[in-house]
């Protein structure tokens, strides 16, 4: 049960990274799928924001921008302790609002939208100890494939991807436990390193997650805290002489709340919302995620 819960919470990109949405965190905990078992989810992630945290950490206004990602997430145990994972945003929409003069009513800058495939993550997780261990641990390697559009629209300012290849190695440790007589709970810690290409700064990612299963473990409530720190070792605007919309050195600390409910058997629904309460070069608005899932473990 806990394993399923952890899995189903794994795919959410907890926050929109400045004009790069849908990046998922494979930080779902140390539990791997048993051989032949899996977890699959169709979900919608979205964020609409009209302000962002600047490099000083203070929110500043920007043109209202929206990202909507429709995607499939899946985990599957190829053998015990080895789980393959994929997060595929097969429909990603990014738009910006019209800029309209409050004086004349004239549209000064027409809004635009692009609809494309999004950046895709594939990964593999290895359980460092045997299933059922008291303190399960896992290592994972995730590749962020830049299948999205990094510079769309007439101004090249719409993005459904960042145009760079991520390589994320992460360590997970966690523990499951009883909560009262009928409920279960779990807590996990995750630490990862994202090696980024194309002059983007590398990142250290830390995550804490805790959840409790209620109503015979049909309803799961989850709290997740994530912190991404940029090493700021990539390029900045000073190094880029083209008209690129290169945004780098993003970092944030965010909180996400999620509820997942098994309707019948392994079939269920989930909803989540979250947002950054601290950040740099990142959207300052809540993001949302709703989905339906199927858990082969139930």
């Amino acid at each position, binding site marked *: 049960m806990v394993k399923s819960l952890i899995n189903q919470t794994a795919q959410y990109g907890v926050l929109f990274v400045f004009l790069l949405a849908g990046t998922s965190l494979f930080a779902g905990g140390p539990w791997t799928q048993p051989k032949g078992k899996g977890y699959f989810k*169709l*979900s*919608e992630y*979205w964020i*609409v924001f*009209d302000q962002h945290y*600047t*490099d*000083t950490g*203070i929110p*500043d*206004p*920007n*043109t*209202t*921008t*929206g990202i*909507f*990602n*429709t995607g499939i997430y899946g985990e599957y145990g190829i053998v015990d302790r080895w789980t393959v994972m994929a997060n595929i945003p097969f*429909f990603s929409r990014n*738009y*910006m*609002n*019209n*800029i*309209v*003069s*409050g*004086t*004349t009513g004239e549209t*000064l*800058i027409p*809004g*635009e*939208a692009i609809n494309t495939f999004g950046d895709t993550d594939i990964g593999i997780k290895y359980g460092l100890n045997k299933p059922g261990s008291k303190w399960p641990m896992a290592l994972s390697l995730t590749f962020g494939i830049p299948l999205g559009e990094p510079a769309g629209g007439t*101004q*090249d*300012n719409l993005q459904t991807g960042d145009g760079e290849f991520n390589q994320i190695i992460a360590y997970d440790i966690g523990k499951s436990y009883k909560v009262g007589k009928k409920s279960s709970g779990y807590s996990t810690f995750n630490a990862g390193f994202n090696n980024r290409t194309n002059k983007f700064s590398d990142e250290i990612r830390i995550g804490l997650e805790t959840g409790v299963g209620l*109503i*015979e473990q*049909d309803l799961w409530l989850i709290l997740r805290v994530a912190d991404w720190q940029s090493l700021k070792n990539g390029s*900045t*605007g*000073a*190094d880029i*002489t*083209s*008209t*690129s*919309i*290169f945004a*780098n050195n993003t970092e944030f600390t965010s909180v996400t709340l999620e509820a997942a409910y098994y*309707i*019948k058997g392994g*079939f269920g*629904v989930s909803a989540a919302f979250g947002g950054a309460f601290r950040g*740099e070069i990142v959207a300052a608005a809540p993001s949302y995620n*709703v989905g*339906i899932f199927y858990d082969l473990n139930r």
Partner: protein
Amino acid sequence: MYYGCSCSTNQIILYKYVLFGAIFGLGLSGCIGDDIIFDEVDPEIRIMNPVDSIALGSSYQFFNVYFNNVGQPQTVPVAWSSSDPDVISINDDGLAAALQNGSAIISVTYSGGSVPVQASVEVGVGENTVIIPTFRYGTVISTSSYLLEGDFELEDIGGGAIELRLASNYKASTSLPGLYIYLSNNPSTSVGALEIGAVTVFSGAHSYTLDGVGINDYAYVLYYCKPFNVKVGDGEIIN
């Protein structure tokens, strides 16, 4: 107590279809709306080629531009006048004639708006026609949370070109993608502004040479994050 759902198989299938539809619908529902910007400025009429003095017995053609309440140039009927037509006369087209020694205030007025707008310049009559020194200056300040500061000068370097010089105390944030510099008559928007180009120098003195631009054509230096329409800062150009 157990509160779990006891749905039938048909209900589950129905729920699945509804949920699938809802999720796809959400994916398509990000509609483009309107962001309203407050871009009103005070209308202004500007004498584009003021002079200190006009040579006695000669004439001088003044030009003006009217900038409307969003800072855009607009052709409007104007009236030219002289405070002392016996010294300097001026006709409806702005052609002035220096008739005798002395001085007069030359004005141009547009009265068609809600409030009349006027520009004036004091002009003497002397031995030579002397153009007002073609030098302006100002200070750029941040209007956002991004670092931006520094003094600047604007100078007519002849040949129909001007030079914008940022001083050694200039600093700008390197964090913004697509930081651009403009000359504008409206500090609230880059629309209608002259795009100088992408900022490539983020500290220290540097300059831009702009061909085909008059020293009095613009009222502000403007810094904008072009891709995301985020204003970073501005500096009023002072005479």
